[in-house]
């Protein structure tokens, strides 16, 4: 079907591609508009399905969400007309909103900061040659591949009073007085703190591997030069290695910020059965609006707030990391 159109467009497209790379785009501008339409049409069979999926299941739901955030939707799902910004007013005047907002910032900042610091150390260990390194590297992958829900559940069980194994360990080493435990998963503060621990744990593999990839780009002769200049390992690390990791770290930090901000399962498992809103982040609150209160309209308004935050982070990502530069 498309072979005839393809055949005719190949030589032109091939020629058009070579010019911008070597000579810069200025020279080709004159020739482009005339063929533009036809080339775009020829590309559709190839990129069309991807466009349909992206527009239909990613961008259109975003539009639906923006629209719904200004509607009054009943519990049964009936659209009862426009309410302007009432849903946003409900979101922002909810007495727990600002604590939740603040907790979201704490959640993201603490998890990402701790993840990056620990990963820098882990990467140093995994970057050194020693027998068995490959096995250690493979073990580090496990929390990355494993379901976050399942990893969180084993920690939740471990913290249970009396029979939880982490709780028992803490009793055995004398950190807790009685096997009744501290009620780790019953109090919002402690459950939230343990959620941070789990979130850091599952974020370590990706971050460590990204830093390892960054370490591989540190030129050996630069390290040698630093050594010859008499720099100790600490000084070499902070003055030579760390600056070289800038690219890898910015990728790791930004992707982690997005992942941690969007994270639902850890808090859902660890704090989901605690009544009230003292351990919620924006993301868990959205799901409480949808699932517990059946307020899709208010959930949409809060989702729009979250969406705008994500878009800002993505914009920073595109600006700082410049993922388009190699296209």
């Amino acid at each position, binding site marked *: 079907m498309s072979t005839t159109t393809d055949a005719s467009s190949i030589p032109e497209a091939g020629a058009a591609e070579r010019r911008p790379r070597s000579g810069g785009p200025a020279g080709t501008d004159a020739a482009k508009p005339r063929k533009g339409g036809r*080339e775009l049409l020829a590309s559709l069979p190839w990129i069309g399905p991807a466009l349909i999926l992206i527009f239909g299941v990613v961008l*259109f739901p975003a539009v639906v969400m923006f629209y719904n955030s200004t509607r009054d939707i009943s519990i049964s799902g009936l659209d009862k007309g426009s309410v302007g910004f009432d849903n946003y007013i409900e979101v922002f005047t909810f007495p727990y909103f600002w604590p939740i907002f603040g907790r979201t910032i704490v959640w993201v900042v603490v998890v990402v900061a701790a993840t990056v610091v620990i990963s820098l150390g882990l990467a140093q260990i995994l970057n050194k040659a020693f027998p068995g390194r490959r096995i250690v590297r493979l073990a*580090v992958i496990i929390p990355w591949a494993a379901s976050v829900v399942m990893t969180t559940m084993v920690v939740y069980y471990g913290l249970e009073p009396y029979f939880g194994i982490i709780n028992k*360990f803490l009793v055995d080493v004398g950190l807790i007085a009685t096997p009744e435990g501290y009620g780790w998963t019953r109090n919002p503060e402690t459950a939230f703190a343990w959620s941070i621990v789990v979130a850091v744990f599952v974020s370590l593999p990706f971050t460590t591997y990204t830093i390892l990839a960054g370490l591989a780009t540190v030129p050996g002769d630069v390290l040698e030069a630093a050594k010859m200049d008499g720099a100790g390992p600490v000084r070499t690390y902070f003055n030579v290695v760390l600056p070289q990791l800038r690219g890898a770290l910015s990728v790791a930090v930004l992707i982690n910020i997005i992942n941690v901000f969007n994270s639902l399962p850890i808090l859902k498992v660890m704090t*989901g059965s605690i009544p009230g809103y003292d351990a919620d982040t924006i993301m868990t609150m959205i799901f409480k609006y949808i*699932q517990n209160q059946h307020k899709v309209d208010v959930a949409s308004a809060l989702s729009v707030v979250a969406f705008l935050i994500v878009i800002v982070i993505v914009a920073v990502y595109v600006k700082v990391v410049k993922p388009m530069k190699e296209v």
Partner: protein
Amino acid sequence: MAVTAPAFETIPAPATSARKRRYTEDQVPFGKVLVRMVAGLIVLLVFILPYVIMFFGSVKTKAQIRSVDPTYFPTEWHWENYINMWSTPETPLVQNLISTIIISVFATLLVLLVAMPAAYYTARMQFPGRMVFLFLVIVTQMLQPAVLTSGLFRQFVTLGMIDTWAAMIFINAAFNLSFAVWIMHSFFAGIPKEVDEAAQIDGAGRLTVLFRINLPLVWPGIVTAIVFTFVACWNEFAASLVILSTAGNQPLSVALTKFVGQYETSWHYVFGVSIVAIIPVVILFMIIEKRLVGGLTAGSVK
């Protein structure tokens, strides 16, 4: 190069890349290697610990795992848990496993079918809108279902597809598409264009070039895309939680959360199912270990 050659031979695994050699340029003293091994062992233990607890728990009886004086190691090995757990009353686990498999397999196939042509074309051809398309891909790669769930929920209610596998297949495919396009794009772009041109001079059409000439060369990229997509779909939680309401339709990730907060949680079954669900994806990730980073941050870490 010649100076470093002797030290190179002391590395146990023949890691050939010149960059990896730099920490072993001098003969590393035995004490230092020992310290590294101890540090490595500690890292290993920390990372497998939750999954060891999971495994030990999965072979205990309910009485043992809920005992007020629990043992760290199982005193008896109740392998029959791995059979009995599938008929636990909390949730239809067999159906949940089937759901997980069907959604993950079909979403991965859909991603391949849609991403491969797009990746090939954008890597090979220059056309107006190419940069816009790739920019769109980058931006959607950063979006996750969680933040769009309320929109997705309403959309699939309107389409009459709420609580269906099809909805989750489309959602999983759409949100993992960008990554697959991106990684395959970088692999296609790595093949010299002369290869294609030579084939075309010999009279091969675009599709023949794609399947016969390029595909064998970009196979590692495709495997990476398949593994990442499959594992992401396998573990997806947020959208499934809202879209799939019937117990039998839900994947394991959602079904298992029902055990939390129950009066007497059957933790031994939760862990047995978790072990069964985790092992295949961990193996998949280990297979592509070398490309894990290049995968997720395709193009951005140099």
